[in-house]
């Protein structure tokens, strides 16, 4: 017998809550010598694709390296899928793939040989590793060039080969550090498309570190903005967009009193930001056409009606100004 829809929804909610976060930060701090790089990072990241943003030197790469076990935390810890980075490093590394920012490959090796070696080091048997290496290279679009030596590749091809080695063992979480660095527009588009395909497959979570806001906006559903080694903002882009759709700004002419009274009766929150300006938060079930109807009934002219549209750039710039974790 099928369960009622509400019960099913509750069950799904409970399952989601029970699932460990992709990345759980517990006061993570990292210092190099006496120089603090990451300071007391807290929060649990659950998105399918998490964008890691911040100006140069904010600590994005250090955060990824610490999660990969390259740098030991000086205080606090973090968990990836419920595994502690300090205690279960090997288990974590078997679940993740990493595409480094800098050129990283093994010279005098063909791409297929290189990707196969990386797959074998991840624990795949030799024959499966070879098969997956071919598949990964075809997947990223290097199928025809897979027998060429890596040192003969262009920058864009090297980026794709790095992506291939990061996904060859089919990880559950993929760290991509500046994947579009130095790519021309078509190559960048190809990279973005691949990242979105991986995200949409539902087979892997992605952490995308970039200083290019447009890349993150195109690929990610959650963003974590770092500033001076601290979390400036962590938010769900989709929720942010959804909440923006309910936030309206009006410019009016005439007497507003009847209109605001009618708005209050509808249950909408409002704030007067000037003699002829107001901000409104629409309640569920209230549409924009209801506002036009109310305005007509109260004899008020609506000169301008606009949605609040916070682009990622706005969010980023605000985060850089405030840096207090709120928008």
């Amino acid at each position, binding site marked *: 017998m099928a369960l009622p829809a509400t019960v099913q929804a509750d069950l799904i909610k409970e399952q989601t809550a029970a699932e460990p976060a992709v990345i759980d930060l517990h006061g993570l701090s990292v210092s190099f010598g006496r120089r603090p790089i990451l300071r007391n990072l807290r929060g649990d990241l659950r998105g399918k694709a998490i964008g890691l943003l911040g100006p140069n030197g904010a600590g994005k790469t250090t955060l990824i390296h610490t999660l990969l076990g*390259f740098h030991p935390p000086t205080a606090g810890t973090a968990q990836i899928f419920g595994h502690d980075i300090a205690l279960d490093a090997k288990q974590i590394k078997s679940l993740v793939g990493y595409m480094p920012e800098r050129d990283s*490959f*093994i010279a005098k090796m063909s791409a297929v040989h290189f990707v196969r070696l*990386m797959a*074998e080091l991840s624990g795949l*048997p030799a024959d499966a590793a070879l098969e997956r290496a071919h598949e990964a290279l075809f997947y990223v679009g290097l199928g025809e060039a897979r027998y060429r030596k890596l040192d003969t590749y262009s920058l864009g091809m090297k980026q794709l080969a790095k992506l291939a080695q990061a996904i060859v063992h089919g990880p559950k979480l993929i760290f991509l550090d500046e994947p579009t660095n130095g790519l021309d527009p078509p190559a960048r588009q190809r990279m973005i498309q691949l990242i979105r395909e991986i995200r949409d*497959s539902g087979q892997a979570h992605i952490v995308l570190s970039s200083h290019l806001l447009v890349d993150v906006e195109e690929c990610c559903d959650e963003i974590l903005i770092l500033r001076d080694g601290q979390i400036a903002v962590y938010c769900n882009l989709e929720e942010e967009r959804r909440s923006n759709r309910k936030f309206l700004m009006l410019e009016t002419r005439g007497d507003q009193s009847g209109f605001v009274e009618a708005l209050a009766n509808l249950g909408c929150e409002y704030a007067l930001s000037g003699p002829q300006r107001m901000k409104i938060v629409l309640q569920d079930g209230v549409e924009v056409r209801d506002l036009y109807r109310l305005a007509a009934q109260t004899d008020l002219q609506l000169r301008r009606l606009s949605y609040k549209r916070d682009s990622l750039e706005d969010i980023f710039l605000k985060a850089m100004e405030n840096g207090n974790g709120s928008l």
Partner: protein
Amino acid sequence: MAVYEQTYKRYAGPLTPEWKRFLVIPRHEYRAAFKSKLFTAFFVVCFVPLLVEAILIYLHHNANALGVFRLNVRELIPIDGSFFQTFVGLQGGFAFFVALLVGPPLVSRDLRNNALPLYLCRPFSRAEYVLGKMSVLLILLSLITWIPQLLLFLFQSYLEGFAWFKDNLWMASAIFIGSVVWILLLALLSQAVSALVKWRVIASALLLLIFFVPSVLGEIINQLFLTRWGSLISLGALMKSVLSGLFGTFVRASGHIRITDFDDQVVRDIVLYEPPLWCSWAVLFGVCAICLALLARKVRAYEVVR
């Protein structure tokens, strides 16, 4: 993630046991090394002394063959500790040149191309990385040193009889320990040099210098100060002492110098004493420890600028 399906798919098949993943590295390195015909030819040449050794052992036990070559068994080198020591030393020389060809690029190539993060972001530790790279040399050098030497020891035992085998079993342990110490030293030194220098040619040159410059310096010290303590800075001399100790041919008083005046009257008679065996072992141990410390410092995903 099939080639034609073009979708991302997680891998759900079996995984190899963690303990033997380091062997992936030597397998891939051998593929590259044996692509070079020159190296393959040299590696084959390394077996020539072993063939000579086998023939000598065979001749000792075959009167017909001796007759054909018109040789008397007393004219042949006796098969004893010195016989095996000589060949272990000879193979050690070949092992050095193999290490010189294969060792220097092992780590330096990865450092030059920033490949270490790619290794270390996998379930593969730094220790496994070093072990994997070292095993490239350990396996290769074992194939031309203690493995064939022990097989020849067994061959000699087979021809001579069980009593000889029982009486000379210590030789087998000397062959094994002497060879393993040498190849360990070679593997560690070449890895450490490779981790220090990013360029293959410079790493090879440095490895050569480490072996030959201290030998020359040690000999100069010996000659200048009429001593044998200068040998302590020569890795070759140290290994020679250790091998002599293992094969029971080590003599501390290795020579003497007679100083005469113009009338050929002896003014001074100096007996030259080799450094005690424990000193040689201690220096070798120290060199290995330094190499390990260097590797621990250099083999990291990223070097942190503090």
